[in-house]
Structures are given as C-alpha cells and as structure tokens.
C-alpha cells in the first residue's frame, strides 16, 4: 500500500515538474535537456498578446471575485438563516454540472436574447455565475459552525438586522469572505472551458492564450507562462487556506 500510494504521488507531481524543468531548457523542443536559460521568460515578457491576455485575465478575475463574493456571501447567509429550497439548488448546480453546459447555454443567451457582443462583459458574467456557488458553500460552512445565540443576543439588545450584520455577523465570517474572494479570483483566472465559449473572437485570457499556443505551436514559452501561473494560483490557494480551512476541501475543481 505504501508503495502504491508513493507511485500515485509520483504520478501527481512528475508531469508538473517536467513542465517547470523544461521552462528553463535552452532548446525549442521539449525533448532533450540542453542547458539552463531564462530565454523563455524573456520571450514571454516581450509577447504583447500574452501580456494583454494576462491583463484581461486579472481584470476579469478582480471583477468576478468582487461581485461573486458579495452575491455568494448573501446566498451563504440566506441558505444558513432561512429554510430555502430553490436558492441552494440555483447556486450549487452550476458548480456540479459539466462546465460545457453552462458555457454553451450562456453563449446562446448572450447572443440570442441579450444581443450582446461577446467580450470582457460576457466573460465576467459567466465567471460570476460559477463563482457564487463556491463562495456560498464556504460562507455557509463557516456559519454552520457558529453559536446562534450571538445573533440572538444582538437582536435582543436592540440591534437592527443591518447593525447585526455589520457589527456581529460580518466580522465573524470575515475569514470565510476573504477565503471565498481569493478562491473566486483563482477559479476565474484559471477557467478555460466557460471562457472559451463566452469570450468571442476579440478578447483573450491567459488560459485561452495557452490553449491556442498548445494547439498551434508548442514552444517552451508555454512552459514559462505555465510555471508563473502555477506559482500565482498556488500562492492564492495557500493564502485562502490560511483564512479558512474548508477551502482545501472545496477547491477540487
């Protein structure tokens, strides 16, 4: 069993290690080790399309995480406080479905109903749709572990619902709110499938850019951007986990 488990861990880490190592390889091919170089990182930082894609990704991720955190926090509180049937279903189903279904249905909706030109806005809306559920789950888990009597005490002392929220609930769930925001940011910046269907031709994001490079011409520049993106998301997730441990259980997508 020890041995089998060890092999599985190897299986998990070997491929990513290979990607990182080849990002420093002084050869156009991902085959033989030739020598160490920073060349691919230099190429990367001069690649204007890639930089534009990175800027788009960050803008979308900032917007999506901000709005999804607000909506998700509301949803999480509502799901905890009230016996709602429809809301948990609406919020969690998009997370559990194959992503392609959300992608194509939004594509249809944006073009056929809203007559929207696909671009930053359509991607932003699409990302919010699947991030809300993740935030709501983290918030609800946090609230579930809390003593109800704190909120009752606030009410008994004459606090309005808004005061109770601002002075009691919000400070208590703050770690989960921050964790949810960081998680949404990560999910958004990493998303490929849903972005693929909702971005149209004009706008690119990092994953879309990586995809087209993989499909057209693989150079170690892909390895370099992958390595940097890996570091970024790794940092975000570890940071999120510091605020709220349920993130690690939730972060399975």
């Amino acid at each position, binding site marked *: 069993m020890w041995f089998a488990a060890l092999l*599985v861990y190897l299986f998990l880490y070997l491929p990513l290690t290979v990607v990182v190592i080849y990002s420093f390889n002084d050869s156009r091919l991902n*085959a033989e080790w030739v020598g160490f170089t920073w060349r691919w990182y230099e190429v990367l930082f001069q690649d204007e399309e890639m930089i534009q894609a990175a800027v788009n990704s960050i803008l979308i991720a900032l917007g999506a995480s901000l709005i999804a955190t607000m909506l998700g926090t509301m949803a999480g509180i509502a799901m905890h406080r009230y016996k709602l049937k429809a809301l948990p279903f609406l919020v969690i189903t998009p997370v559990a479905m*194959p992503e392609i279904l959300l992608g194509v*249905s939004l594509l249809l909706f944006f073009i056929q109903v809203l007559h929207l030109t696909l671009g930053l806005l359509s991607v932003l809306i699409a990302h919010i749709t699947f991030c809300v559920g993740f935030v709501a789950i983290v918030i609800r888990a946090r609230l579930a572990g809390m003593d109800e009597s704190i909120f009752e005490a606030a009410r008994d002392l004459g606090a309005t619902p808004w005061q109770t929220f601002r002075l009691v609930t919000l400070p208590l769930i703050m770690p989960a709110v921050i964790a949810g925001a960081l998680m949404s940011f990560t999910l958004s910046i990493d998303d490929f499938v849903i972005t693929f269907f909702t971005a149209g031709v004009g706008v690119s994001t990092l994953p879309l850019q990586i995809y087209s490079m*993989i499909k057209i011409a693989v150079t170690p520049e892909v390895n370099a951007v992958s390595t940097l993106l890996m570091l970024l998301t790794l940092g975000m997730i570890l940071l999120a986990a510091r605020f709220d441990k349920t993130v690690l259980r939730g972060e399975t997508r």
Partner: protein
Amino acid sequence: MNKEKLTRWLVSGPPFLFMVVFFVLPALIMVVASFRFPGEHGGLAPMFENSSWQFTLETYQFFFSDFIYTEIFLKSFLIAGLTTVICIAMAYPVALLITRVPKRFRDVMILLVVLPFASNFLIRVYAWMIILGPQSAFSVAINSVVTAFGFEPVPLLFSPFAVIVGMVYVHLPFMVLPLYTNLEKHDPILLDAAQDLGANAWRRFWKVTWPLSLPGVYAGSALVFIPVLGMFAVPDILGGTGDILIGNLIKEQFLGTRDWPFGSTLSIMLTLAVLAIAALAMRFSRKSLSYA
C-alpha cells in the same frame, strides 16, 4: 411587509435574481433552441415566421437516425467509466494510507493530493503532451520494449490511451477527497474484530473496509464520471482525430458548423445523462448507507 420578511428578501433576493437570469433562463433558452430550425448563416432561424410558430423535432430525429451520435455517446460513457475505475484503483491506496498515518501528517498528505490541482487545468493536460510526445524519454523507453518484441512502435500521444491518462490525471483528487472523508470515519475496532475472528488482510479489506467505503466510492465516482462525460479539452489536446466525445461534438456544433439547434439537442441529451448518473449515485449511496 414586516421587517424580518424584508431582510429575508434583501439577503436572498440579489443572488436569487442573478442565478435565475444567468443560469435558469439560459438553460430554458437552450431547451427552446433545441426545437428550432437552424438559421441560414448559423445560429437560429426566426421563431415566428410566415405567420406561424417554427418548431420542430428534427434535431432529435436526426440524433437517433444516425448511429454515429449514439456511438459517440456510448464511447463517452465508456471513457468516463474507465476513467472512474482507474481513479478508484489509484485513489484507494492513497486515501487508505492517509487514514493510517499519525494525525499530524494527514493534513499535509491531503494537501499534497490537492496541490497539483492548484495549477491550471490546461497546464496539467499540456504536461502529458510533453511526457507522451514521440521524443520523450517515456515514449522512447516504451517503444524500445515494443520493438524488442518485434512490434511496430506505437505513438502514445494523440491516442485513446493519452485521453484516458489525461482524464485520470485531471480528475483524481475528486476521488481521493470523498474516499478519504469516508475512510476516516471507519472505526478501527471493526478490523481488529475481523482479525481476531481469523480474517486475513485480503478478507478484512473486501468484507469490512470496502463495503463500508461504498458511499465514498459512489460520491467520488459521480464527481469523476460527470465532468469526464462533458469534457472536450482533453480529447481535443491529447486525442487523435478519431477520439471525439460528446463535449467535442457540442463544441463543434456551437463554434464550428454553427448548427445551434442540434448543439442544444446534444447538450440536453448530455444534461439528461448527467441527471441520470447523479440520481443513480445518490440512490446507491443511500442504499449502501442503510447497510452500514
């Protein structure tokens, strides 16, 4: 309206409204689109034309008339099934091991399973492009064995094999986490009892641990099977021209040939399949819970 009710609406209203508009409505539009005619230049034809409503069952008839679509659905189920079984086989030793190490190591070991998945999904797939590529050390080693036995060298990349490896790699933690959550709750005393009664390690596993872990196995299976069923990127990147699954078919209808009604029909078929699998998984795990 009293204050309590107002608060309730203020808190649940905005997320509710957002999800209705951007999740329920698009889903309904897709159902409607599946009964419509394709437009002349792709997309959808007008719904109301020549003073009559334009609806049709054509796309559904088309789906069942050509066996190729049923075949692609069956193939997708087969790939998803294989991926699930391999994931169970690989996740089990890891999950079991984590429950048997001292408590303070457990979080780290779980973290080590989840961590690779902090990297972008495409990067994880791309990594296998390198490893299975024709010039990679792995491919060369495999093929030197193959040719030593007198066979033609086999290309590893752009094959069904590569697709399954990629699918397993991308979905493995979905299996490890629920399995571990389940195994963690088992009372070790049950295994002691089985041992005292003379059961060897093999029997202890199959008669005690395995049946008790079934809810975890079913939960993990649903979490692996469902996303694999709709995946288009893995076959797109690692598969050959023949390795087309439901996801690729849907993508092609929406972005390639732009036959949106048929694309919607395929999406609805996929949704139905997913719902069936989810219902099945829930039924099974409830049944096995009542055993345990």
